């Protein structure tokens, strides 16, 4: 069973062996889980869509790993790795993707739209940028009640930063000096639209100046750089320096969803540094630093694969919801529900 190690005591930004190992494990688990989800989708076992994080695992896992369990986290589409690093289990991820009534969304919402708000883990809505101000509101609430030390983190892409919701929420967080880390994965395509059609900025990190927040850039393909830059941003937010905007350069190594062959991605980009597979880079890094050798990595892979297979069997057995026994009330205050017509 995948469990994220509590990083409560981790206050340095240094990419220590222990941190890199945790990040790597989440990356590997996310990648293998994604591959399984794609297979289940092709086999017709998954309703709706499947949205994978291939190429974004290092960035996402580095963020999840840098957070404490008491923090607030609002991940986005390609943050399977970050979700695992923040504490989500493989079983729980699968329950949402396969529509199990035992999942946190109880078959009412699926795939990437999952979370546990009571645990500070927010379920995204599909409207990009909408969760940023919600994280801000949770942080504001904690400040008002005198609860200090927690931060919030949220993820968005090079397309999402064009929304009004992003602009309003980042500006508001800056005005209120909230301890918020906003991680932008610039994977160069918003569905099929290239970055040139999203922004005229030289770099997306230039937006930080406009909002009056601190900006950082990271190589999203490099586990060490992600670990260092995200760790630094998290520490600065926690130290009261206000919102932190982290922009990481990378490339989406899959379609927008599994229905998409991504033939619009410029082949030349794949040959550049951003086209590297972050999981390969991480594997090499761990071996170079003598954190894991090839055999240990293969063992880890086998172990995670077994874990995923067993989780899939378990969740498939849980079955789907009973629509006739379902509670069709959208209100918490039952007496105020409009009578069914």
């Amino acid at each position, binding site marked *: 069973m995948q469990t994220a190690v509590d990083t409560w005591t981790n206050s340095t930004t240094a990419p220590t062996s222990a941190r890199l190992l945790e990040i790597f494990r989440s990356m590997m688990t996310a990648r293998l889980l994604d591959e399984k989800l794609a297979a289940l989708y092709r086999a017709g076992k998954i309703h709706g869509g499947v949205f994978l994080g291939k190429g974004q695992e290092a960035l996402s896992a580095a963020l999840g790993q840098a957070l404490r369990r008491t923090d607030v986290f609002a991940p986005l589409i390609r943050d399977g790795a970050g979700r695992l690093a923040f504490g989500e289990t493989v079983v729980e991820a699968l329950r949402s993707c396969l529509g199990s009534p035992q999942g946190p*969304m109880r078959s009412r919402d699926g795939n990437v739209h999952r979370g546990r708000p009571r645990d500070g883990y927010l*379920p995204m809505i599909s409207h990009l940028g909408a969760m940023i*101000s919600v994280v801000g509101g949770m942080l504001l609430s904690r400040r*008002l009640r005198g609860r200090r030390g927690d931060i919030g983190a949220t993820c968005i892409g090079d397309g999402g930063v064009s929304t009004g919701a992003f602009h309003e929420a980042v500006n508001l967080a800056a005005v209120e000096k909230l301890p918020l880390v906003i991680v932008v994965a610039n994977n160069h395509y918003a569905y099929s639209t290239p970055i040139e059609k999203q922004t005229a900025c030289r770099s997306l990190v230039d937006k930080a100046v406009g909002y009056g927040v601190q900006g950082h850039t990271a190589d999203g393909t490099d586990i060490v750089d992600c670990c260092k830059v995200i760790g630094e941003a998290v520490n600065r937010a926690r130290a009261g320096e206000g919102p932190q905007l982290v922009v990481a350069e990378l490339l989406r190594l899959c379609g927008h969803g599994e229905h998409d062959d991504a033939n619009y991605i410029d082949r030349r980009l794949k040959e550049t540094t951003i086209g590297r597979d972050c999981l390969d880079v991480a594997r090499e890094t761990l071996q170079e630093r003598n954190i894991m050798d090839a055999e240990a990595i293969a063992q880890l892979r086998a172990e995670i694969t077994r874990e995923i297979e067993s989780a899939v069997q378990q969740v498939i057995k849980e079955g789907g919801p009973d629509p006739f026994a379902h509670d069709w009330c959208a209100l918490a205050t039952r007496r105020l529900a409009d009578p069914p017509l």
Partner: protein
Amino acid sequence: MSITYLNAIREAQRHLLETDQRVLIYGQDVGLFGGAFKATKGLAEVFPDRVMDAPISEDAIVGTAIGAAIEGLRPIVEMQFADFSTVGFNQIANNAGAFFWRTGVPVPLTVRLPSGGTSGGGPFHSQSLEAVYAHYPGLVVMTPATVSDAYSMLIEAVTIDDPVIFCEHKYLYYHLKADTLEPETLPAGKARIARTGRDATVVTYSAMLHEVLEVAKELANEDVELEIIDLRTVKPLDTDTVIASVARTGRLLCAAEAWPWGGVSAEIIARIANEGFHLLDAPPRRVNAKDTPIPYHPDLWSIHRPAARSILLAVRELLRI
């Protein structure tokens, strides 16, 4: 001593801030300035941490309030005008409205919408959006028509565990006064029979109640007695009270200031046609605003929205008098 509809809203918020540490007021100019209509005047002085000015960002204002509500606060958002709430519409409808259903975690959030027309308000400072919000699942929509309801329903709104859209009418802010607040009021979801009568049922809410009361007074001189129902809450809709009244009168007119298409009036008529068709002695009717943006000039505006004159004509047609 008399209290206005606006004062009632301010006093309700003062009471809430005093009695519940979880209450937070958030919106544009609501702080020391006291709000565009002075609905929060004097509150920031007493509760500086919990009456907060926001940037002009309706989406982020509602999103922030959702986050605060999830964390256990009871935020009240003031939209400067109901019309601007469309900028925050996504957060209200898709995030707040769906949140409990999706996660099982309630969002106790109140959004105050200064609604409805005033002379010279024009297209973007006059709208009545209750039907738009009622259309989305997961929201409660209140439309108080009296000073007492403005006070007690706002207090109740904040105690409700779901997002409440509180449509307060700007025309009533200064024009409607009461000597005292009624000690006991109906709960949310219950309509009030504002006047009993035998000849026809008129269902209305918010500022239109007062236009309809005027019509009823005039018709009483002709020995025609209207029964008037003030819905108070448009969602949930108190269909039972309306049906019971139609059973007594056999005739139904709906009068609302909002646009006609897919509105509250249409919903009531659909329900009565479905559940009480056999009770009707005449086709049900409705009076709504014209299906155009709301005009600026007072002479156009007075014809655009329903008023006593046009409601009276509709009642005469309904009763063939």
